């Protein structure tokens, strides 16, 4: 029992919720769960946007979500909900469980025992910290130790802060995923594809817009360094913030190949005289989390790039 929040009571509430849904839904509901997702958020985060992201993930990775809000609450509080959606063309609703726990920073050490009681038995646990600094809080380390994967997003940190968080995170037994790395998958894929297709490698450069060096560009440079064997310069094209939907990476050049974002949904691929467009809509957090949740094994590519980032 922790400050009035009891895992068993929360689970009973959920059971009661399922019973009520079973009675009220003539077509029945499908209770879907493939993992426990612990989403840790800070006081300054947009609660609604985070909620939409988590709901969106459930369609592909049905899970029991435990949202832990580290905020100014006087005491640890919790509530349960069941989220349902009707798959297109189907008559049966698919439902997942969500538990929200609010805890003050000072009461955070009371929370892990509650989380342990709420984790779904025998299925993987994933932890997501929108603000990466929360992932290194000492009080949360017992939770991380049960996680198969810990995901953060270093996009909003400067390079030094990001490196410090990542250095601490990678010392644990869990897999680390960074949404800033997932943000460059399509750039990497396209470069790899063109090199495999015979594109000649050569000098390389990554350009970006906006102030401060984005971690996505840092990762992309580190990956390219692995490909060509020499450090890759990162250059700011324009310190003004990018137009909506454009993202911060502007171009990648490698020998005769240039990829340049020309519109919010499009990247132009120029390889010598051959030109093609490729669809690059800016990805939402939910898309990036989905990608990271699809990688539950050792991610050698990311580890190699991260090592270079740390060494650089």
């Amino acid at each position, binding site marked *: 029992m922790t400050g009035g929040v009891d895992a068993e009571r929360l689970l009973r509430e959920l059971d009661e919720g399922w019973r009520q849904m079973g009675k009220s839904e003539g077509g029945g509901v*499908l209770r*879907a769960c*493939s993992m426990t997702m612990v989403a840790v958020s800070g006081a300054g985060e947009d609660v609604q946007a985070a909620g939409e992201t988590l709901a969106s993930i459930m*369609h*592909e990775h*049905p899970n029991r979500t435990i949202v832990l809000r580290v905020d100014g609450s006087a005491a640890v509080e919790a509530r349960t909900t069941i989220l349902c959606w009707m*798959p297109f063309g*189907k008559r049966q609703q*698919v439902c997942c469980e969500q538990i929200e726990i609010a805890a003050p920073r000072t009461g955070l050490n009371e929370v892990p025992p509650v989380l342990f009681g709420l984790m779904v038995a025998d299925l993987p646990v994933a932890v997501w910290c929108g603000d990466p600094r929360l992932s290194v809080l000492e009080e949360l380390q017992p939770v991380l130790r049960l996680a198969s994967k810990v995901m953060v997003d270093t996009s909003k940190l400067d390079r030094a802060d990001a490196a410090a968080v990542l250095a601490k995170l990678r010392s644990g037994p869990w897999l680390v995923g960074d949404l800033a790395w*997932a943000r460059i*998958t*399509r750039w*990497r*894929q*396209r470069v*790899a*594809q*063109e*090199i*495999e*297709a*015979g594109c000649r490698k050569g000098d390389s450069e990554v350009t970006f817009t906006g102030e401060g060096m984005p971690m996505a560009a840092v990762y992309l440079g580190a*990956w390219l360094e*692995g*490909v*060509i*064997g020499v450090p890759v310069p990162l250059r700011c094209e324009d310190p003004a913030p990018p137009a909506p939907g454009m993202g911060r990476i502007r171009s990648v050049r490698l020998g005769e190949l240039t990829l340049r974002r020309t*519109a919010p*949904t*499009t990247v132009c*691929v120029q*390889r*010598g005289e*051959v*030109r*093609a*467009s*490729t*669809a690059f809509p800016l990805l939402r957090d939910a898309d990036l989390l*989905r*990608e990271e949740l*699809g*990688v539950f*094994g050792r*991610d050698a*590519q990311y580890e*190699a790039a991260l090592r270079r980032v740390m060494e650089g």
Partner: protein
Amino acid sequence: MTGALELEDPLRWDRAVPPSAVVIFGANGDLTKRKLLPALYRLAYERRLPAGFAVVGISRTAMSDDQFREKMRESVQRFLEDSPFDADLWRDFALGLHYVSGDIADDGLYKAIAAKLGEVESQRGTAGNALFYLSIQPSQYEETVEGLGRAGLNVSRNGDGWRRIIIEKPFGHDRASAKELNSRVQRVFDERSVYRIDHYLGKETVQNILAFRFGNGIFEPLWNRRYVNHVQITAAESIGVEGRGAYYQEAGALRDMIQNHLLQVMGTISMEPPVAYESDEVRDERAKLLRSIHVMKPDEVLTHAVKGQYGPAKIGGADVPGFRQEPGVAPEAQTDTYAAVRLTVDNWRWAGVPFYIRTGKRMPKRVTDIAIQFNHAPLAVFGAETGKQWPNLLVLRIQPEEGISLRFYSKLPGAGMKLRPVTMDFNYGTSFGTRTPTAYETLLLDALVGDATLYTRQDMVEASWEVVQPVLDVWSETKFDLPNYAAGTWGPAASDEMLAGQGHVWRVP
């Protein structure tokens, strides 16, 4: 250090397609419009195609490149499934679309194709790689392949590119014509360059059979004659021949479905584990299984196979015509719109286990599934309380609701030991909400990267014709009293009787 090994990231993306051109014979046909171009566009949308990519459409109709592009744009917009149409992307994709008109019988056509391929190679950097896709009448296959051979299009100009060919089913009309087709194709293309497409094998759920069987440890020990009582494979369609009466009259259900799709599915269900998920290893095992199917003697056909044809019926207040009333069908047609066979496999794993396969048109609903019925529990401890016996049943659903369900007994709540069968369901769509690629996306991509795992090989085609040929022979020499089932039913009574003779009953899927 240069990190060539660090280029690929198989955890996050799949194999890259090399620069290449796809040459589609029958570019003005339905398959191209409904399936092939939407699939290629979708692959471009998914960033699976390289910048150096082109499509060359071939057909009799005179058309300019621009007219072909416009026609394909309309088709892609209309038939693209679960995907947005991106006008910017299309503009660049369409630059790689070209068209050549001509007659397949005319050698001039192949010279024109050679010239066009040379042109796209220099413009688009396709590196001499070309995939020919025969989406034409089967009667034109040999002529086209030989035309390609005479023009030297079966090898690239410089000899460093690859040339492959995709052939749509049917691969022959019977055993002899299949062998003849294979032999003539192989005079021009070696077997490794021939991709015989069976779109069933490209379906996600058919591939999932391999994942289910060989990715899990708990099912394989049960997967044999000791535990499996029998297997039922059903592919039912609720529609009739939908304007294809003339074609269907010559083909029939046995040729159209069982000889290819369903025997390949049976092969996937019952083959031995391959040593690796590699093209040759998987196909070797599937071919070995197909060769192990007991080939019926003529006198076995009447007890091991049932031919059916649907007659007219009134369904839900609407009059549904019988097969013989369909446009283009002869009033005395002996065509099988329903076929059921009882097959056995002559190997240690499956000896004595019946595999029942049925397929038909105008059945009560559209469904394709595979049901593996296990033996009863060795001792009926709860005998009197359970009523009718419901042995364990594992159903692998291919369409329309892809998934897997397992039937087992559970105690009825309350006093006494009353048991009732229940099912435990895994629903593919709700567990993985992502869009699944169409079979044509999967198969085109495989052919472009040179992976033939999901394509049928010459020996597999010939082995499956061996299985159905005795049935075709006996049926062609026998006059049946048709129609013998009403539209909207599960087939002729003789089919039920075939199973009843073995103490089995068709499931209601």
